[in-house]
């Protein structure tokens, strides 16, 4: 029904799985505030903690919501990756 979507727009407004890496420690209870993403804390060798958040997000508006919440928590963003390659 919709006009043909460019690949860019496909990512923009369709669901995709993401992995977000931030510096520091994030408690699992935050998952409720972060679109239900799975939170995992990794301790690196030099005792520095990083946290991975992963899971499916509905679109970029939801992704931006997550990033914004992380920003308001003063967490530094290290990496963000889309895990599934092709869009549906």
């Amino acid at each position, binding site marked *: 029904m*919709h*006009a043909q979507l460019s690949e860019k727009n496909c990512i923009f407004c369709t669901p995709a799985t993401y992995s977000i890496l931030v510096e520091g420690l994030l408690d699992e209870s935050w998952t409720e*505030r972060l679109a*239900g993403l799975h939170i995992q804390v990794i301790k690196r060798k030099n005792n520095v903690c990083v946290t991975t958040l992963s899971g499916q997000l*509905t*679109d970029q*508006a*939801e992704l931006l919501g997550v990033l*914004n*919440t992380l920003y308001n928590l003063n967490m530094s963003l290290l990496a963000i990756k889309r895990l599934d390659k092709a869009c549906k």
Partner: protein
Amino acid sequence: MSEILSGYTVNQAKLYRPRVVADYLHRQQLLDRFEEHNKKPLTLVSAPAGYGKSMLVSHWLKTCNVPCGWISLDENDNDLRMFAVYFIAAIEGVLPGICRKSQIMINSQELPKVEDLASALRNELEQLEQPFIMVLDDYHLVNETMVHDLLTELLKHSSRFFHLVIICRHDPPLPIYKLRAKNLVTEIRTNDLRFNESETIELLKLVTGKQIDLHIAATLAEKTEGWVTGLCLAAISLRLTGYTELLSLKQHADTQLIAEYFFNEILAKQPSQITQYLLFSSILNRFCASLCEVVCDQEAEVLSCEHSGWEYIAWLKKENMFLIPLDIENHWFRFHHLFRNLLLNQLKRHYSTEDINVLHARASAWFADNGMIEEAIRHNLAAGDVSGAVQLVIQNRQAAVNTERWFELKKWLSLLPDDIVQQHLELLLAQVWIHIYHYNYGLIPANLDRIEYLFKSQPHLQSASGEISLFKGIAFFFQGDCARSLKYLEDAKGQISEAQHFLRAGVEQFWGMAGHMQGQKERVIDELTDLLQNQSLKNVRKIRVMASLVTVHMLSGDLTVAFSLSQQLKNFAISINSNYYIASSSYILGRIHFCRNEMDKAIGHLSQAAELGHIVIRRLYIDCLGGLALAYQAKGHADNATASMKRLDKLVQSLKNSDFLDIAHSFEARLSLMKGKVPSTQGLFSRNWRSRTYNMFFWLESPDITQCRVFIAAGSERDLQEAENMLKEILRLSQAQHNTFQTIFILPLLASAYEKQGRTEEALTVLEEAVALAAPGAFIRPFVEAGPATAGLLKLLAEKNIAVDFIGHIMEAFSSLTDDMSPIDITLEGQLTNREYDILTLLAERLQTKEISEKLFISTHTVNTHLKSLYRKLNVNNRRQAVARAKNLKIL
């Protein structure tokens, strides 16, 4: 709300639902999605700017005919209180009277906890009998966690008829995914909002008024990817230019660039005056015709005519230039955010910062002239003119104080950088006024140092000396230094003019109390009573003068006059809708009944005050809850007493203030004493009582006095000595402050301490003094609570023919004491001797001391000695308790 609590002015424009534009495309498929609102508590509309979110929701509300509230949020709503003010105003505007309790909560000087506010709101929303839809537009601008918490709590247990719609550019940090899993949220997202090809054709037809070539429509749909703002820009551009060479579109592959491309096309087609108007007015968050004229039209004198501002707005409307009306009267407007951003970009590209600053300065002047100080300040700051902003606050602060527009004053100050505030005497004075308004008297001294320092270096600000004297007077008053307090308040009285109502009100309120405490009761009462005769006295002043009079009578132990004045105060408070004084006067009425041992009435008034506890000073709220516990216990309602204590504990835990914690502990200790248990004297309070002087006021609970009660009940030689020393010290303080009220509570305890040390003569002297002070106001409770030993002493006084009638009243109260010992935790302190057991048996037969002595052939003195030992072992205070406990322990 009321005159006193009118700090929050609600900007009605924020509650205005944007009206659907004439050429809006009806999108039935999307409207259908909303229809699930009666099954789901939340609808989330989340997509980037320019997808037509607000219009869609507004269109739905127009078609669905359900009562609704709309809040256009902005950065100012990053404050739980402001957010709640609007949230409640939006509901109350449609369904008045629904949120009464939560409205009281948000008007309190200290903000309630989020959970408390949420649960109050939830309860009220559950009372809804018809569907209500609340729309929060631009929710992405909120980043205050407490606001998110509030909504999370509300969504957890949603009410049947309350439906929330959140419109945002990115998802809010609410547990949306949980609601999604339970199918409790309708989501309308970017993908849903995109225009498909047939909708694109419809839209272009609507905007241009022409049939559109299908090929062009298809190209536009593809290029804009269904982004409605891009389509609208394209349509306007098509209308202005005819058929654009679509070839050029091919080069602009990016959606955003397409928008800019069309925007530039549109701008290029406008006459220069219109272009200038468009660019200049883009600095404004909102605008009206005359503001536009001032900001945009000053150089274009040749072209300007009288109605150019109106003409400009009429043109914007006609051309459909992304204009959004902000009120029903069609007076205020704003641009669509995206359009405004495009204009601002152009403005910055073509004009220098200096030019733009001039525009801001003009806007600031217009807002200041029209009394919209906050926006004037914002434009001053945007123009980099901090000193202009400071001057605006200084010029307007007195008027704001005198008309009680506290929230505005607070807002103005918050816009200025803190180091700037610290450099300006008048700004610091304004800050202190805000503390006073919030009853945060403790914060005054910290500001005073800096104020005095600045005052010395700025002799031209002599006019501030009245305020400074007043602040010093208040600060010393709370430190218990009434001599200095009175001196400064007298100064302030001479320096502050009658026209400054709120300042005068502050002076008179404290001057009355300080004057009394310096022994000038008669003069104070005369002068305050005279003032009340003045018909033209403003309410804000009148109520404080009344309150001051009540306080003076309370402090002097004159409960009868205080009672009738408090009733007048309460009636007046009700008539001007001042919840603060309704609560305060209820507290005082409850306090008086408590003193007179009329516990039913005390409970009634204190409960009423506690209902409004969130809006009064914390100390008073604490006293209400603790007072309720004591009153219930005195009535023998142990469960209610426990419930009140729990409320008190919860309150002080949340306040995290060691003084308040001490008071709660103190209440607990006093309650234990009433139950016949003696709390440990060790580590009861965090503070050393000798460490400071303070204002004893007429608080129901004074930790120092309760500490003495505990010492007396513990009863060892050392404890009694400690109690005696402490009581003498407190007595000296209370007498020095002419605080007859507390003196009446202290003296019977001192008598009790003497008596327990076997110094009956001294005890009688002290008690006689207490009776003389207490009789006119009919204080009963101080004697009853001082313990059974007091009853014996009072009898001795009556035998000496002293105040026989009054003592008779007190004795009645003693005899009606209920047994209220808890059956748990009872252990016998030591084995009873045979003699004690005999006496206990006779007590159970309700024999008097004299009868016991005759039966057992011992002297009354010996009986009393045995009784004392018996009481100690059973851990009780009187005969009836002793019998009850003995039965409990199966001794009898």
